[in-house]
């Protein structure tokens, strides 16, 4: 009897952890970001501190973009008409910049964490 209970316990934990992570993934708020040939819309996204979130980037422009952020450790090339989702880990309050590496001059934006 004992060996089975010993085996079961970690399994229960694993299952609980999986459920929890699944719930967390569902909870992650999602923000839409539209890129159009070097213009981000909106250019500023406000998110709450300490929570994972997702950014759904849609490239509605005619040229490819590279969503890049050294502050957020993200790098994503998106062709014209393409979409991509990036998941951002919980952040401390502050400002985190992102930019479009293919349109550096105009393609700037930031995430304000409050």
């Amino acid at each position, binding site marked *: 009897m004992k060996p089975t209970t010993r085996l079961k316990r970690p399994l229960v934990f694993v299952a609980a952890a999986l459920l929890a992570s699944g719930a967390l993934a569902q909870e992650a708020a999602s923000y839409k970001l539209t890129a159009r040939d070097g213009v981000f819309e909106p250019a500023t996204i406000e998110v709450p501190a300490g929570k994972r979130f997702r950014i759904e980037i849609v490239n509605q422009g*005619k*040229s*490819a973009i*590279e969503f890049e952020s*050294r*502050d*957020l*450790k*993200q790098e994503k*090339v*998106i*062709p*014209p008409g*393409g979409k991509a989702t990036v*998941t951002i*880990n919980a952040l*401390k309050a502050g400002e985190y*910049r992102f*930019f479009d*590496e*293919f*349109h*550096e*001059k105009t393609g700037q934006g930031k995430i304000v964490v409050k």
Partner: protein
Amino acid sequence: MGNALFIVWRESAEALLVVGILFAWLRKRPDAAVGMRYLWGGVAAGIGLAIALALVMLGIASTLSGNGLEWFQLAMTAVASGLIVQMVFWMRRHGRTFKRDLETDMARNAGAANWWGLLIVVALAVGRETAETVVFLYGLGADKGGITNLPIVLLLGLGAAFATFWVLQQGSRILSWHVFFRVSEVLLLLLAGALLVSAVEKLIALDVVPALVDPLWNTSALLDDSGRMGGLIASFTGYRARPALLPLLALALYWTLVWIFLRRSSGRHAPSTLVKSHGAHPVPRAGRN
């Protein structure tokens, strides 16, 4: 137009650096013909890899689902970082032993063992960033106004690439071999460090490891890593204006280890200690390995 050209050049700079240095170095080797075959094989494999990756990015071939592409890019970055370091030390061991290489078949075989490493380094250097250039150019081509620009950008971009390559080759002629080799080593080791930082950051982004403290400080007033110049410096040295603690620790550990191994390998006057040599040159012991 100028912007497009700069992007094409920037995205191919890493590949040019790796291929250019290896090309200059291989030319001096007695077995250059063999090495060149692996070098150009690596370039061809890299272009194939770039096209495959670009197809995934374009969503045409989406065999990699979810985070698959991110994991694949992480693996490529980490492997490239490690192999570049290995390449530098391999070049160090063999750079000074050209004569001896000719004399002993043994050393030659040891050198040959790394040809595949060289091929993979080149393929990764070419493939990783070129994929992004392909998507960028696809965007230019897909845009109606861009179709006329595409051939011009392609031609000018290739021209800029060849000019960079040529400058590297001239550098190997004008500078003394010793100086050129030293500069190459530094550039390659900086690049490997930058790739390591990038790999650790990808691990943080994938939530595999914690950033520990993020950001640790902010030097964007001194040198911004998002601008053109700062961006180039960031991708070739691992510089970050707002670094997280973990990548910084990784970089510090990397440079400590590199420094220790560099000191060790330059302390040896007979590099044959690493290439098992039998015969005239006795292997110094003193328990160094």
